[in-house]
């Protein structure tokens, strides 16, 4: 393993004795400390998943309240302010705290396994991303527990409604600072993924052999690092307006509120592809596995993913067709938006091509994946209807948009993510959800989803505006709203079944051997759950569906592995990174600083800055200290020496080099 040793740049430490008196080297494998200090991509992925699912339930609960309020005309479940808070938090939660981190969970857990790596390129940065995400989620949700209440500016936070003049309390501050932290977390994580995918591929894993899910991870990561800066700047400008009285969106001093919309949607449109591309990656793994065929048109699926990502940067103004951009700009964005249908269609066609002539086995993941293809198609078609600007003038901000994006977000992203959970569950936990309960939950979710959102197309065309807490009985919207609410309740039941079964399976589900699905990609060559070091021997990749090839060439591969294992043992065992608390400390500092900026009153009486600056500074110092120690403690790690059964010796420190 010369390679790994070389990547370890602390040359001198090679001779250093084990004990460090200055830096805490946690080694706990269980308990709170082990989770707070973990740098293992699998544990981090698991934590992302747990937080994401929790927030999905919270967001779903908010959605149910929305639906209950709208069940009948002139509903009284929520007040206007509560309702506005609810859809703001529902949108923000679902997009930033549920679907994105759930994708991140898969990026973390699966992607390194798929490329035959032992971890991501920067394990501690990975931990930092996780905890910063958690910090952001806390800040956004802090309002529920405070007098000012949770944010109510809509998930797009259009200025000047979110400026100090029209939203004087702290709720918007929390929204801004929370999103800001989520941005930091997402960018840091994505930088890490990009480097990992580009640089840590196993020998033979060329770019055109990468599993499609890994490809989509790469493209998504690119979208994140390139689009989040725009919302970051938009939020900085809004925050400067709110804190220091600058003029970015201050109309009386020449500010143009429309600028916020541009900055937001330059981010916002790529964001929706950030939500869908991982889903497409998951589906591109599941369909071949259960059709028992390689993916049809691999290169073109990859290429279309990249072009969706690229085109995604040139269409943002289709969210602004009604802002009066003039004919030329409207036409240009209209056409560019339509163009995206082509690469997306290519994916659909190739998925069908994958099924063609296969031996399709209808297991639960496959059900969700096929559900995805159907539902996403419908959502995509209503997207194309939006892209025709004159038609969109009637649809914009109506329930037609709500229908469109729930079809792509739930029928699309969420279905695929639920499919992914089922698909990789046996690998992650060594247990498998029972087919009966899996399929039952699928059908209930599928039916509930369509009953909820299909009528919304009609509501939209019938003129029901979105973000409205009430409506009158004489507008012809009663039936559709009632049905949608019933659908949402059915959907809720479906989700409940899904999670109940998942928890049950996690605890007492049927144990399965490795590679239950007879799958194609490398991660399935691992025992389940995968050991901390992933691969005992870094695999050599010979073909696109690497593990499929290996299964076909068993002897050759066995010989190869034995040789490599010997070479590796000779070189000092498996290199593992140390656990570290400092990424957590740095995130904690960010959390404190954000609380200081967002929540503490700007009280001018005791000294100019009041207490605000104090708390923010404490946070800043904690963060800097975290980063400083993080840099100083170094990344030398330790070595694992496996015995023949693949067990590591109990005491890790003893294995230090």
């Amino acid at each position, binding site marked *: 393993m010369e390679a790994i040793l070389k990547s370890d740049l602390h*040359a001198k430490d090679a001779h250093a004795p084990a004990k460090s008196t200055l830096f805490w080297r946690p080694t706990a494998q269980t308990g709170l400390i082990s989770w707070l200090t973990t740098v293992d991509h699998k544990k981090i992925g698991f934590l992302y998943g747990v937080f994401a699912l929790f927030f999905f339930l919270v967001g779903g609960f908010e959605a149910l309240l929305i639906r209950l309020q709208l069940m009948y005309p002139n509903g009284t479940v929520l007040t206007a302010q509560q309702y506005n808070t609810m859809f703001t938090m529902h949108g923000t939660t679902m997009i930033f705290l549920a679907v994105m981190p759930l994708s991140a969970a898969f990026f973390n857990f699966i992607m390194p396994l798929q490329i035959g790596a032992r971890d991501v390129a920067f394990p501690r940065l990975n931990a930092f991303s996780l905890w910063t995400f958690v910090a952001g989620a806390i800040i956004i949700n802090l309002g529920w527990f405070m007098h000012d209440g949770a944010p109510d500016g809509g998930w797009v936070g259009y200025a000047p409604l979110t400026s100090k003049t029209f939203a004087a309390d702290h709720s918007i501050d929390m929204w801004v600072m929370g999103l800001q932290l989520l941005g930091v977390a997402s960018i840091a994580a994505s930088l890490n993924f990009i480097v990992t995918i580009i640089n840590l591929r196993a020998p033979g894993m060329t770019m055109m052999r990468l599993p499609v899910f890994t490809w989509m991870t790469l493209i998504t990561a690119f979208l994140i690092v390139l689009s989040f800066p725009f919302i970051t700047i938009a939020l900085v400008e809004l925050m400067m307006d709110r804190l220091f009285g600058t003029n970015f969106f201050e109309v009386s001093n020449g500010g143009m509120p429309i600028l916020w919309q541009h900055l937001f949607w330059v981010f916002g449109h790529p964001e929706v592809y950030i939500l869908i591309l991982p889903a497409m990656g998951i589906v591109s793994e599941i369909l071949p596995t259960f059709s028992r065929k390689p993916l049809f048109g691999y290169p073109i699926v990859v290429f279309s993913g990249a072009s969706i990502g690229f085109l995604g940067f040139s269409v943002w103004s289709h969210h602004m067709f009604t802002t009066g951009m003039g004919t030329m700009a409207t036409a240009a964005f209209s056409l560019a938006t339509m163009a995206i249908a082509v690469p997306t269609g290519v994916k659909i066609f190739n998925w069908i091509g994958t099924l063609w002539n296969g031996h399709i086995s209808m297991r639960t993941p496959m059900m969700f994946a096929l559900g995805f293809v159907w539902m996403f198609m419908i959502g995509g078609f209503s997207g194309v209807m939006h892209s025709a600007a004159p038609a969109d003038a009637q649809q914009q901000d109506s329930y037609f948009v709500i229908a469109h994006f729930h079809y792509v977000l739930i029928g699309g992203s969420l279905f695929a993510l639920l499919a992914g959970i089922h698909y990789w569950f046996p690998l992650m936990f060594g247990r498998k959800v029972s087919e009966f309960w899996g399929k039952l939950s699928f059908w209930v979710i599928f039916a509930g989803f369509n009953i909820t959102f299909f009528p919304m197309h009609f509501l939209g065309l019938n003129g029901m505006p979105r973000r409205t807490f009430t409506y009158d009985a004489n507008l012809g919207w009663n039936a559709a709203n009632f049905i949608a609410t019933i659908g949402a309740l059915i959907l809720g039941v479906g989700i409940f079944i899904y999670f109940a079964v998942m928890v049950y399976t996690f605890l007492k589900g049927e144990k399965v051997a490795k590679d239950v699905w007879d799958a194609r990609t490398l991660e399935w060559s691992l025992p389940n759950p995968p050991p901390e070091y992933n691969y005992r021997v870094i695999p050599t990749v010979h073909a696109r569906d690497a593990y499929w090839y290996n299964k076909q060439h068993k002897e050759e591969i066995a010989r190869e592995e034995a040789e490599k294992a010997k070479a590796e043992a000779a070189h000092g065992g498996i290199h593992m990174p140390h656990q570290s608390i400092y990424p957590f400390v740095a995130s904690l500092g960010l959390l404190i600083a954000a609380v200081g900026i967002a929540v503490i009153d700007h009280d001018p009486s005791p000294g100019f800055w009041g207490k605000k600056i104090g708390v923010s500074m404490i946070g800043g110092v904690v963060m800097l200290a975290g980063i400083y120690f993080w840099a100083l403690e170094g990344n030398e790690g330790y070595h694992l020496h496996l015995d023949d059964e693949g067990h590591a010796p109990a005491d890790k420190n003893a294995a230090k080099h």
Partner: protein
Amino acid sequence: MSSHAGTIDHHHDPSTSTGIPNKKLLMWTFLASDCMFFGALISTHLIYRLHPMPDAPSPKNIFSIELTSFSTFILLMSSLMMALAVTAIQKGNLKSMRWSILTTIFFGSIFLGCQVYEFQEFVEIKKMTITNSMLGTTFFTLTGTHGTHVAIGVLWLILMYVRSFQPPEAGRNAAWFIRHAVHIAVIIGAILLAIFATLALVHTLHTGGSISAYFGGHFAMLAGLLACIAAGIFLARPNGPVNFGEANAIDVESMGLYWHFVDIVWIVIFTAVYLLEYL
């Protein structure tokens, strides 16, 4: 594990799939992302410059192109020194690297000093604040963000410089840790004191005050500055073997990429924000 002295190829890292060291790839990707940050900020500034309020202040009457040209020149030179620092450490020439880094820090601090001076002048003499006009808002935010990047760069340079004195087995050496912290504090102190002393001197000269009054009035500040410099020299004396060498070139190089990027952003700002206003 051996340090392969003399055989490290700085353009190829065999442990990665592409041969590009991870840290370098990380930095380049981050810089691509940073392009978008500054793209958003510069767009904001230019959009508002192209659609000013009727009574908007004219930048021509506010900017001082001489000062800005000077600081632009300084920043370019700092970039040169940074590039030299990287070459030095790639050849294992620690001493040369330290001097180059120190010079880079020095130039960077001059740039920051100029910016502090510029901001102060705009606010106090030209009466342009961050709140009283759109120009102030976008100008201060844009150049301020750039200045923050420079400040972070200077801090990073300082940390790297001090890091180059780290003895082997530092993890067990608490005394070193304290020395290390003091060293950093001393350098930051020296920079801050130097900036403020210089600004005060400029102020004195501008307002026609006497030099002796300046020395009298700022005695403590100047004494502190001298003390910091002395302490800095003392802490930088040769003190046994260090754990910093050719293998760390990648760290210095990544830092260099960041520093140069800050420089090229300034190239764009200098043209788009300053020069174009004079046409």
